[in-house]
């Protein structure tokens, strides 16, 4: 071995110390230089969005998160979209009509093309449907009772054929994003070729940052803003500070507390609309028949102990409304079925009538952290309210990534009430009712129903509604489904949170929709 001295003879200790000193000085100078640089605000002609979830793809085959929808739709589009009034609006199609009970006729617009100039073809639609159908565990697939088959009629016209009537297909197709057939695979797509108003010019999946450039050849006219920067800012406090300091132009999915902080700042605007999501304190319907919760009267009595108005006004700072039906009132086809009343005295009387006295009933309430804004405070208040009628409650909170799914299915432990939110991306009540309350005995064998909810009356009515092609008659049946569900007291309390968006004044024409999304193509900047 050569000696160490001979190897290191060229570098003296003094030289090394000097080098370290210079490097340290350089670091300090670069820090100071940084101070003098820009503060990270958006460049001119650009808008910066701060998303609470990482935009890991520009596709929604597997999951669909509110925060991602706006950006995904700015790059890829569907045949329809759910419009501001929650009805389907044609996008890539200029005709989408129910032409027979099991057939929809669709015609592609003649002026549409992808950002590379290639035309949209019928084959792209059929491939998209195949790819969505092939993904395991897809969120959207659950809303399709069956996948339609594409039958071409001419170059632009085709029919969507189903075995059984599917009267809400125009709603469902709003979530199927179209991509060139050759580039589509049964996975979430990372690249950005689409028909939308923006194209992706840079992305970093690791940091969740994307740069979108205006698609000057956009078939509906180029958008106003030249460039959109998408940043992943998971912590709400960071998003709020970023908006206040001008680093971010627009943030969504903010809690009532943060909205309150931002309210009144001259440079910030807040927009609130009634949302489509419903958050519930849902009962466990897998209880044995002799369990108190198996009785609708006991479930109703517990509901009477919950002061929904106080929870909505005080804990949720007025950013939510108590539900008046089993789905959000904003959805097309939803009806008012009743209301949650607060009457603890009656609650106690009803429990006593069932032979349940003070201290007889102990319940376990489970939920995952962050299921909805203010979740822990709501749960703690509920413990107090139920305690007032002599019902004990044990709270069990699961952190994200924990095994709440196993608990929900009753495989890891027993529980009585679940704090849970249910998003409604399709805009119509019927598919949501099907998703939540359409559980069958067969599905329950594998614990795949919504917390064990299986109701033969609901199933029969849902079948009737799906088979009915006359809209008025279908709505009548849909209303009956909701009433039957409501009367079964599935939730101790349920509420519909507002969708909230905050943006700086320099950004204009932000029209937040109930789906917690907005059209990025319409957004502009102050002159």
């Amino acid at each position, binding site marked *: 071995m050569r000696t160490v001295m001979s190897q290191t003879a060229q570098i003296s200790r003094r030289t090394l110390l000097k080098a370290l000193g210079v490097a340290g000085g350089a670091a300090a100078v*670069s820090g100071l230089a940084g101070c003098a640089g820009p503060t990270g605000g958006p460049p001119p002609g650009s808008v910066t969005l701060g998303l609470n979830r990482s935009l890991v793809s520009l596709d929604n085959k597997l999951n669909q998160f509110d925060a991602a929808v706006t950006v995904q739709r700015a790059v890829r589009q569907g045949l329809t979209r759910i419009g501001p009034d929650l009805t389907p609006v044609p996008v890539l199609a200029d005709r989408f009509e129910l032409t027979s009970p099991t057939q929809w006729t669709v015609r592609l617009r003649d002026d549409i093309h992808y950002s590379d100039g290639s035309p949209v073809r019928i084959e792209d639609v059929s491939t998209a449907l195949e790819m969505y159908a092939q993904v395991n565990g897809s969120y959207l697939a659950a809303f399709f009772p069956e996948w339609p088959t594409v039958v071409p009629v001419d170059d632009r016209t085709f029919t969507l054929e189903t075995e059984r009537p599917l009267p809400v297909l125009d709603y469902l197709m709003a979530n199927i994003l179209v991509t060139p057939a050759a580039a589509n695979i049964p996975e979430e797509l990372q690249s950005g070729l689409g028909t939308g108003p923006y194209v992706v010019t840079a992305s970093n999946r690791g940091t969740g940052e994307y740069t979108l450039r205006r698609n000057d050849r956009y078939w509906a006219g180029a958008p106003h803003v030249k460039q959109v920067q998408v940043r992943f800012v998971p912590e709400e406090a960071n998003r709020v500070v970023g908006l206040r300091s001008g680093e971010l132009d627009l943030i969504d999915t903010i809690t009532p507390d943060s909205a309150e902080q931002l309210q009144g700042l001259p440079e910030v605007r807040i927009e609130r609309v009634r949302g489509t999501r419903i958050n519930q304190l849902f009962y466990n319907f897998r209880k044995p028949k002799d369990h108190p919760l198996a009785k609708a009267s006991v479930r109703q009595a517990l509901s009477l102990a919950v002061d929904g108005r106080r929870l909505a006004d005080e804990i949720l700072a007025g950013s939510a409304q108590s539900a008046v039906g089993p789905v959000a009132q904003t959805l097309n086809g939803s009806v008012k079925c009743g209301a949650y009343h607060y009457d603890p005295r009656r609650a106690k009387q009803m429990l006593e009538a069932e032979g349940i006295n003070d201290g007889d009933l102990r319940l376990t309430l489970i939920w995952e952290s962050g299921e909805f804004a203010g979740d822990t405070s709501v749960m703690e208040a509920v413990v107090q309210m139920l305690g007032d009628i002599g019902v004990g409650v044990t709270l069990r909170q699961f952190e994200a990534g924990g095994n709440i799914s196993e608990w929900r299915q009753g495989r890891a432990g027993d529980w009585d009430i679940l704090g849970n939110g249910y998003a409604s991306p399709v805009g119509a009540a019927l598919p949501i009712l099907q998703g939540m309350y359409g559980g069958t005995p067969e599905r329950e064998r594998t614990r795949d129903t919504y917390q064990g909810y299986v109701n033969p009356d609901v199933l029969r009515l849902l079948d009737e509604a799906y088979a009915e092609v006359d809209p008025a008659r279908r709505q009548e049946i849909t209303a009956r489904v909701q009433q039957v569900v409501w009367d079964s007291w599935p939730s101790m309390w349920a509420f519909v949170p507002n969708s909230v968006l905050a943006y700086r004044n320099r950004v204009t024409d932000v029209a937040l929709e109930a789906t917690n999304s907005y059209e990025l193509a319409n957004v502009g900047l102050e002159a």
Partner: protein
Amino acid sequence: MTTYIVKRLGQSALVILLTISTVFVLIRMAPGDPATAFAAPNATTEDLAQIRTQLGLDGSILSQYVTFLGQLFTGDLGTSYSFRAPAFEVVLDRVPYTITLALAAVMLTAVIALPLGIWMARRADTGRETGANIVTIAAQSMPEFWSGIMLLTVFSVLLPVLPSSGFTTWSGLVLPAITVALLQVALISRLVRREMVSNLTSPYLTVARAHGIGERRLVWGYALSNSAIPVLTALGTRFAAMLNGVVVVEVVFNWPGVGSLVVRALETRDYPLIQATVLVTAALAILVQLLIDLLYPLLDPRVRLGKATAR
């Protein structure tokens, strides 16, 4: 030297293998199912079973481990469940940010802590040193999330002169680096002070002083050189620890480093991503330690790598 490096690299490979094997088993024993994190909330039992098969999670831990080792030796660390991309690439996307922050923080620490420590040593047991001690102890006692939030409030909200989050410009580095360095400055300056006091009162310095060598040279040339090894070791250890992610600071400043990545990977039970992060950060930390060891002979000629030090 070469033999020493090869030997150390061999030892390091074993350490990494042991670490990653432990992580492999422990994360699979923890509650939670990657399939449920991967799939939509309404996925059926059948969907989840298919996803487990697709992700290679349907076999025993042993069979999964054998498969993992086979892939590891071909350089394949699997595909991240949450990013739907090669886990190694996802980690590599984040590593530059972590290295940048760690380097800036360590350099800032060195620039402040060395002069401060020397200053404190030369004024040992005086009122001024007590004052400096109070300040460093206060800095050491401040949790990073608190100091970070305070800096953020002042420089990003009240005087919006520095970015509050991310790393879109170089100025975005200033606040996170200061936050990380605050605690380190307190620790390192006290270490420098202790080492310098010990050297400044040692007989060899008294002899040097008797030979008429100037005070500046005594302090900066002699005492500091002899204090360099423990200080460099401490700085290197802190730097290696920072490479594993400065989670709190990353969260406060939305810094896209590996610390926040691994937290996210743990939340989503993203096994390949957790394994890739552990592998990369362990390798980096070991490399840094090796580099520090290689620097020792430069600082002290008595040090012989791979042999007992003739001190």
